[in-house]
């Protein structure tokens, strides 16, 4: 087994064993999609709320895996000196990052399959979906959120990082265009939200899957900026131990 495969397996074991990570990456997105699709209480501007929800929940899934799950796990690995110990093996930084990236890809693939399957079961009907464009959006979103997660993980103590990641997750869930349309938010908040990676990812996914993006061009720009800037800042500031 190569060193990369060995480390990928170890990364996936960490995800599998941490119940709270599975709750965030799978439990909450599935629950929100199922609940708000059946209980029509959201001001989604859609006849069938599932059509609004699926792209937003896919964005939430990307955020939960690449920001919350990766960030919290990495933060604790830093606190427990796991990263320090691994740094003294032949693994090397590049293969460690590659293993973490691949583990995110595996988890996101499982999330997408489950969420899209549930969406179809609940009556989701994508119109002229451009899956390739959606995949590009997911990749950019993954870079953006992983950058934010690793920035927090590389600079905060494990417990503080845990609280900050979960707090940010909740805020972005509420004001990131995932379950509430941005035009339902107060004016200033709506403007701020459009600059957030969650809103940008939700919007481009809605456009790619439902042809229902509202500010598609600006959302792609916002997402691209986050995808470049966040990992760059994380790489610049990350403290290994």
């Amino acid at each position, binding site marked *: *087994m190569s*060193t990369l495969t*060995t*480390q990928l*397996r*170890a990364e996936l*074991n*960490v995800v599998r*064993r*941490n119940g709270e990570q599975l709750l965030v990456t799978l439990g909450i997105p599935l629950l929100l999609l199922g609940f708000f699709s059946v209980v029509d209480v959201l001001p989604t501007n859609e006849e069938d709320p599932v059509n609004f929800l699926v792209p937003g929940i896919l964005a939430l899934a990307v955020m939960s895996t690449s920001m919350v799950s990766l960030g919290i796990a990495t933060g*604790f*690995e830093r606190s*427990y*000196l*796991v990263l*320090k*110990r*691994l*740094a*003294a*093996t*032949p*693994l*090397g930084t590049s293969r460690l990052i590659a293993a973490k990236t691949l583990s995110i890809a595996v988890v996101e693939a499982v999330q997408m399959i489950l969420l899209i399957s549930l969406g179809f079961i609940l009556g989701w009907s994508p119109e002229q979906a451009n899956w390739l464009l959606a995949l590009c959006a997911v990749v950019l979103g993954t870079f953006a959120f992983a950058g934010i997660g690793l920035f927090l993980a590389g600079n905060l103590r494990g417990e503080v990082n845990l609280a900050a990641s979960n707090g940010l997750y909740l805020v972005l869930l509420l004001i990131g265009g995932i379950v509430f349309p941005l035009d339902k938010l107060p004016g200033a908040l709506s403007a701020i939200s459009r600059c957030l990676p969650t809103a940008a990812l939700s919007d481009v996914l809605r456009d790619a899957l439902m042809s229902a993006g509202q500010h598609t061009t600006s959302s792609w720009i916002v997402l691209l900026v986050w995808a470049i800037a966040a990992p760059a800042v994380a790489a610049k500031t990350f403290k290994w131990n």
Partner: protein
Amino acid sequence: MSAVVVENLTIRYGDFVAVDNVSFQAEFGEVTAILGPNGAGKTSTIETCEGYRAPTSGSVQVLQKNPFTQRTSLHSEVGVMLQEGGVYPSARVHETIAQYCALYNRGVDPATLLTAVDLESKASSTWRRLSGGEKQRMLLALALAARPRVAFLDEPTSGVDINGRDAIRHIINDLAANGTAVVLATHELDEAERLAQRVVLFHQGKIVANAPLATMRSAQHELRFSSTPTLNVQELSTHIGLQVVVHQEHFVVRFEDIDSAFSSELVQRVSTWLNDKNLPLNNLSVGAQRLEDIFRHLTGGTQ
């Protein structure tokens, strides 16, 4: 060729000098103890040898490589045991050991390694459920997974019970017997005395002694006895021509072992003086000083 060569190493953290111009070497097939109290600069030195930090000045060579700039190639032959931590709490023992054996890829069988550190019965346990001694043995196993030519072990017996210490000592002795250069950082003088062939004594960031343990001990001898507390130390010192100090209810005379006859003569002079004064002579011992005493002597204080 020495396994580890440290020359004029200085490590600063801002204005604080943690390690001040130290030089030493570690040889294959030997245990070299980096010894000193907490904060003496041991961990900073050993972490520089492991490649975690660059020296502020001076140089470090491990297996003739620069550990900071040639980390990746060097780490396949170097075993590292951190002072604490290094394993995710939910990670299982056998999985972690197998992971490190695969990462090092040096042909070490995880099952054999598990047996060597006596953790077969804990193979399925998670790290968080291990006792202090078991954790130390597991960290040692991760270092052994490298089949190391050089092993850096930071406080390997810290927090370990007596049986666990014996097991760890046995493994370390085997490692050195098989040709590995073992560099052991510890603040436990007794541990160094049991394991090391060479001792490098750190005090406040500097090396105060660097010699084979046998040489260091034979250079410093002591005569130790107990008597009545009213014994006139000054008068005895004058009589034998050497300073007598009181240490833990014992009277201690430290001297360099000039020749074997000197010890006998010294005993004779002390016992005669006590006899003349009608004072008791109990618990008499003469011999090489313990490392603890040498350390106190060299640093002029307590550990």
